[in-house]
């Protein structure tokens, strides 16, 4: 092959690869919609010692709100605005078994019944838990297609193409334990497609669907509180 032809081949290949990468990069972006509903336009107040607990709903038949998602929201909130957040696991262990999936209060009336127990009410007061944020939802994988084989190619790498879509849908409900009222809801829906291209070493282009949903819900939650 002549030098000029070789150059043309390299240019064509580079161009094709660029188009492929640009296609993948645009493909693995996510779309997110966040809605909120507040009981009043005023910010939620809390003193410097009061705390928020973020908890996942796990009573559904076919899904459970991922503990990692709850940790993500908790970390974002406590990092961003110096709001005091009680870790979900600590709260569940401290109040065991009253917030386990089988018997956790699903509405404010049931929460009122739970607080009729002196032990629970005393502990809530002792820990200065003011708000409970219940997060219900999950991230599902759908539309999986393609296949990839690794270790079979002569180079020992991977060969093939795999893609999948992810959909995150979560709703957060804020309960104020002082007065037992619902202060608002935040709903987030996020979608995105991910790809793995196997041409030797696998090239993953993963859409951070759940991460984006976590950021969306965390930002809105912070906006609910007057953290000064």
């Amino acid at each position, binding site marked *: 092959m002549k030098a000029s032809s070789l150059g043309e081949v390299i240019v064509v290949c580079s161009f094709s690869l660029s188009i492929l990468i640009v296609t993948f990069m645009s493909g693995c972006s996510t779309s997110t919609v966040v809605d909120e509903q507040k009981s009043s336009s005023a910010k939620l107040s809390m003193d410097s010692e009061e705390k928020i607990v973020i908890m996942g709903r796990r009573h559904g038949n*076919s899904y459970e709100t991922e503990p990692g998602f709850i940790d993500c929201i908790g970390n974002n909130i406590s990092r961003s605005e110096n709001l005091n957040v009680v870790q979900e696991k600590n709260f569940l262990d*401290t*109040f065991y*078994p009253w917030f*386990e*999936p089988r018997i956790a209060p699903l509405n404010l009336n049931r929460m009122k019944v739970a607080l009729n127990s002196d032990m629970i009410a005393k502990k809530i007061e002792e820990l200065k838990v003011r708000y409970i944020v219940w997060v219900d939802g999950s991230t599902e994988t759908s539309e999986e297609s393609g296949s990839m084989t690794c270790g079979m190619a002569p180079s020992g790498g991977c060969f093939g193409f795999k893609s999948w879509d992810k959909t995150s849908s979560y709703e957060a409900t804020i309960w104020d334990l002082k007065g037992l009222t619902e202060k608002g809801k935040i709903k987030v829906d996020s979608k995105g497609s991910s790809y793995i291209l196997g041409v030797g070493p696998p090239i993953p282009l993963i859409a951070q669907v759940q991460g984006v949903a976590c950021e969306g819900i965390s930002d809105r939650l912070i906006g609910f509180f007057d953290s000064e």
Partner: protein
Amino acid sequence: MGCSTHVVVVSEHPTALIKELPYKIGLVLDNSFTDYSFIREKDDEKITISLGKSQSELLNKIFNSMFQGVSEFTARPLSPTKPLDLYISVKVEDLQLSLPRETSVNIFEIWIKYKLEILDGKGSNIYEWIISSYGRTQTRFLGSQERALHQATNAALRDAGVQIVTDFHQIPEIINWINIKKAPKNES
């Protein structure tokens, strides 16, 4: 045999937030309970879940939260050295699991069926209590089967604890026994 999965359940169980009853009990957990392992061999795959130690620790924590005193035995003593109000003997009746590839849903599920024999201090049967606990965990991207089964088993153990704590006081035979225990004190 193709694949093999062995899960040793290790967990830090919480104490229960509950008012303790003023009774001393004997908790009878024999070796088949404390060393319990579930083994399933199916479709060229062997799954072993060892949960004896963890479930023994859970019951110790739960009953210590519920009662004033708990003495542990491997068998019910025929001539007890100290008087106890109740003996509670626990056995695993059954354990079942389902994997995501066997169902249409992306979750690992565990069911554990326990039988609790509740006897009074003299060894007379008060109630035979069957508890079915359930735990599950969703599949995670690149998450291991061992980890998922561990989490699901832990969830099932916590669920067993929930039922013991919340339902014990609602068993009519137990309510009746408590009323009888209280009666002489009220008369004196």
